[in-house]
């Protein structure tokens, strides 16, 4: 999503960011403490004894295990090995390494159903990614890796139901926008403690590209980014991915359930579009970050290496970077995951007055992906058409907001240009012709039960998607509904305002809800996660919120639930979360 903060430092100018010393120091040492557990030091060791101790305590599997993109007979398995202490992520060092993998039906690996070996090297940053095939549908499996005499932790994963199966339900964790510098990933920890998730949908901004010290928890940098500069090179992106994957909560969640992911902008750079990004300085001059396509290719390469995702339909590297894909869950649901960054036209510069927001030649999906998405929705293969949608599709307009609030709201959502007119040009609101085309397709084909699942905007929303917003609710026909999860840690409105929860934001929410009757729920204040439960009768989203993102042990509590009943294309409030 769009992130803007006044006084942003240059990549080298970390000192321009105010860091609360106590928080940063204390929390930073905690991070270092964690790393020290893997690489401990002893008082005044001799070089030889230090090397021997390091070798003895060297951990081959430092970045956890993961699985993803479940199919009825296959799932992607992932890990990263560090065969020698020198083989650090992004270092380009370390030997070719053979990694054995096993898949079993039990945690004790008494019944191993698939096994094999995978050779990795510095050329792929010692990542391991493979498609474990020949599995049974709708089945829990356990997997692990072995390399250099060490064994990884055990991961748990689940295959998708058979294409002709009619599962009673599907349950997904839903998350987005996890800024390492802004807090602890408590949302991941609480999700990992659940035993009922068939998969986790990560809707983008899995990591942030910013340099250390910029864009934290307001003025607090809870944990400093590595590498310290804004990530631009392939090695930079690899190191940043690696850093995020050292987070124990994220590791636990990856080990608990398969992930289904899409990238948004920050996996590459803020406000990415097909030809550049707001946070990209082209060229080789001072501050220049090189050519855009080269930078994006590096980001996508690192994403392919480090994420349990099939790009271009395979787990192989280097065979394409097409991210949009379908995942089928029997007759109950089909999930279409979108890439709304790679093919989009540039965001308009002056949203309030620029008619280009409705220019049919501008696109957020790209033409090929739009054709593919329309075909996805038209297929008679499953009841619920779920769309993994990195940026919000519901139209949002505003009545007058107090001038003092326009800036902070804009920082969170990008929704308000300074003159208060109603466009968020980084979302579908900036590409209205694509939205019109998609909604017309849904209406023309009589498509029901389309649910857009969205991240990006650091706030919780539940909304109908009217064909004609101007006539809603008088003409109450809708194209579907949208459910937006809050951020794991990234700034929301109260963070930017620096006020307690449920104070200043409440008035803003009321104004927005009043001006947009199709929006039924809005929470500008909370960080957390969502749980999506899909049955033939309805799709329900439960929002869970954490306490302070600065508190590593913060609890999570249920906040609100909304559901859309089959055939209605509308959201309604529900009084309790799924059991």
């Amino acid at each position, binding site marked *: 999503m769009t992130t803007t903060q006044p006084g942003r430092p240059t990549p080298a100018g970390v000192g321009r960011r105010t860091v609360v010393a106590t928080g940063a120091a204390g929390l930073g040492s905690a991070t270092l403490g964690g790393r020290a557990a893997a690489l401990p030091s002893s008082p005044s060791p001799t070089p030889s004894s230090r090397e021997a101790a390091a070798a003895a305590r060297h951990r081959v599997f430092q970045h956890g295990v993961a699985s993803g993109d479940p199919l009825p007979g296959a799932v992607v398995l992932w890990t990263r090995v560090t065969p020698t202490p020198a083989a650090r992520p992004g270092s380009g060092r370390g030997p070719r390494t053979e990694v054995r993998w096993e898949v079993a039906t039990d945690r004790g690996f008494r019944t191993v159903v698939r096994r094999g070996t995978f050779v990795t090297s510095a050329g792929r940053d010692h990542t391991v990614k493979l498609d474990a095939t020949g599995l049974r549908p709708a089945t829990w499996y356990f997997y692990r890796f072995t390399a250099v005499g060490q064994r990884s932790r055990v991961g748990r994963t689940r295959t998708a139901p058979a294409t002709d199966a009619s599962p009673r339900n599907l349950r997904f964790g839903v998350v987005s926008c996890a800024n390492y510098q802004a807090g602890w990933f408590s949302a991941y920890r609480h999700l990992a403690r659940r035993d009922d998730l068939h998969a986790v949908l990560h809707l983008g901004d899995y990591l942030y590209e910013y340099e250390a010290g910029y864009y934290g928890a307001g003025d607090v940098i809870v944990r400093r980014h590595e590498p310290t500069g804004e990530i631009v090179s392939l090695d930079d992106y690899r190191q940043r991915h690696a850093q995020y994957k050292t987070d124990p909560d994220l590791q636990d969640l990856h080990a608990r359930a398969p992930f289904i992911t899409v990238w948004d902008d920050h996996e590459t750079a803020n406000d990415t579009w097909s030809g550049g990004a707001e946070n990209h300085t082209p060229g080789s001059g001072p501050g220049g970050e090189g050519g855009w396509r080269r930078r994006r290719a590096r980001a996508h390469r690192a994403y392919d290496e480090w994420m349990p995702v099939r790009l271009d339909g395979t787990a192989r590297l280097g065979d394409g970077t097409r991210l949009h894909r379908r995942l089928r869950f029997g007759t109950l649901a089909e999930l279409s995951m979108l890439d709304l960054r790679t093919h989009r036209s540039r965001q308009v510069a002056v949203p309030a007055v620029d008619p280009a927001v409705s220019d049919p030649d501008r696109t957020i999906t790209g033409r090929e992906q739009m054709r593919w998405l329309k075909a996805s929705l038209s297929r008679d293969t499953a009841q619920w058409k779920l769309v993994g949608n990195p940026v919000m599709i519901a139209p949002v307009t505003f009545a007058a907001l107090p001038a003092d609030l326009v800036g902070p709201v804009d920082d969170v959502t990008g929704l308000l240009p300074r003159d208060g007119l109603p466009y968020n040009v980084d979302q579908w609101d900036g590409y209205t012709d694509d939205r019109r085309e998609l909604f017309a397709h849904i209406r023309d084909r009589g498509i*029901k039960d389309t649910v857009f699942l969205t991240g990006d905007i650091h706030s919780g929303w539940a909304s109908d998607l009217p064909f004609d917003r101007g006539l809603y609710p008088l003409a109450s026909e809708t194209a579907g509904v949208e459910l937006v999860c809050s951020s794991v840690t990234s700034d929301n409105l109260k963070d930017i305002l620096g006020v307690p929860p449920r104070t200043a934001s409440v008035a803003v929410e009321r104004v927005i809800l009043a001006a947009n009757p199709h929006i039924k729920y809005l929470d500008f204040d909370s960080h957390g996660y969502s749980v999506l439960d899909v049955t033939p009768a309805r799709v329900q989203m439960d929002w869970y919120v954490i306490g302070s993102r600065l508190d590593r042990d913060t609890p999570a509590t249920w906040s609100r639930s909304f559901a859309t009943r*089959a055939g209605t294309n509308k959201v309604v409030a529900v009084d309790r979360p799924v059991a």
Partner: protein
Amino acid sequence: MHAAAAPHVHRTGRTDPAVATDRRTVLKVAGAGGLALTFSTALGAPSYAAGNRDRRRAYVLVVDGCRPDEIDSGLMPNLAALRAGGRHFPRAHSLPVMETVPNHVMMMAGVRPDRSGVPANEIYDRALGETRTMDRARDIRTTTVIERLNRRGFRTGTVLSKDYLYGVFGERATHRWEPFPLLPVTDHAPDLFTMEAALGMVEELDPHLVFVNLGDVDRVGHSDLTGGSLQVLRRAALVSTDLQVGRFVSMLRSTGRWQRSIVVVLADHSMDWSRPDRVVSLTAPLEDDLLLAGKVAVAQNGGADLLYWTGPARQRDRAVERMLAVARATPGVLSAHDRARSPRLRLGPNAGDVVAYCRAGWRFSDPTVVANPIPGNHGHPATRAIPFFIGGGHPAAARAVSSTLATTVDVAPTIAEFFGLRGAPRGGWDGVSRI
């Protein structure tokens, strides 16, 4: 539904229902409201005492033109309750052409139009050389589940609010109610009378299967000039029809039939409303084409136009290409299909050479743009979503919600399985039992 009063490119040879009075007996019974009801019964039909003593009962209630979301509108609490307590198929839809007659025929035949012979309400009859309504009993070219039940000694009944449905199903059922009174504009019997007949038939004649069409929601939807955003009359019809369904359920409970019955509730299609300026008329652009002029018949079906090449057979392929091009270039047309090369449509030759669908919010009007003034239409893909659920106290209607696709063609195999009928049409059912 087609525009009832709309003229067509060729003269409509609408025929009267061919009810042969010499092959039926007439039974007059008093309805619950003191209304005199008249049922015709096939000669030689088994009496209750002499016929099949099976106590199971199946009732198929078609809420004509109902959209699935209307069940959730709060205006139809009886239908919502019936759905909540039964087997619900939220992923249900109508089948091409999304019109009344073909989908009712599919419900009872269990096969698609390429096998039933009934692809639309209106066709161009090549033998007659004119367009006509498919309202003749011989239009159905297969054996329906009604006849299959009759052969096994079960008694069947039809209570159909629309004259053309009464015509196309003819004398197939053991007991038939002829729709009365027919309203002059909508050409259907109001639901109050239709339900009175259904209640009377069940209570007096007690057929094993009763097939009911409730036409108010559809007919009011067609003619509701407030359609689109307000839909005032439509909403009133939803309330009224729901009350009639509530009466039917109450009767089943009060007469002890509920526990041994299933009640299949569905629609034949849904409904879409168009503005007066969103009208597609293909006749003029077809006439403007040198190859096609004077050689294309158009059977207008509201949301779908069926185009028939009437010129030399050797020019057919070229003509189809031209018809497709003309249709696709016309604003408001969603898609046009070469019927013979679109096997998934399964419409058969009676549907002509080209099938054109309009976009949501549009309608066809041929031969002129004023020929179809009706705002509410169906037949196009926007109108394919339907409610489909099976209520009742019989275990076959046990509460469940399924994500499997259910369509109108599933009704006949469902009824057949419920009554334990063996066998299927030659070539098998096109539908699937939903119990």
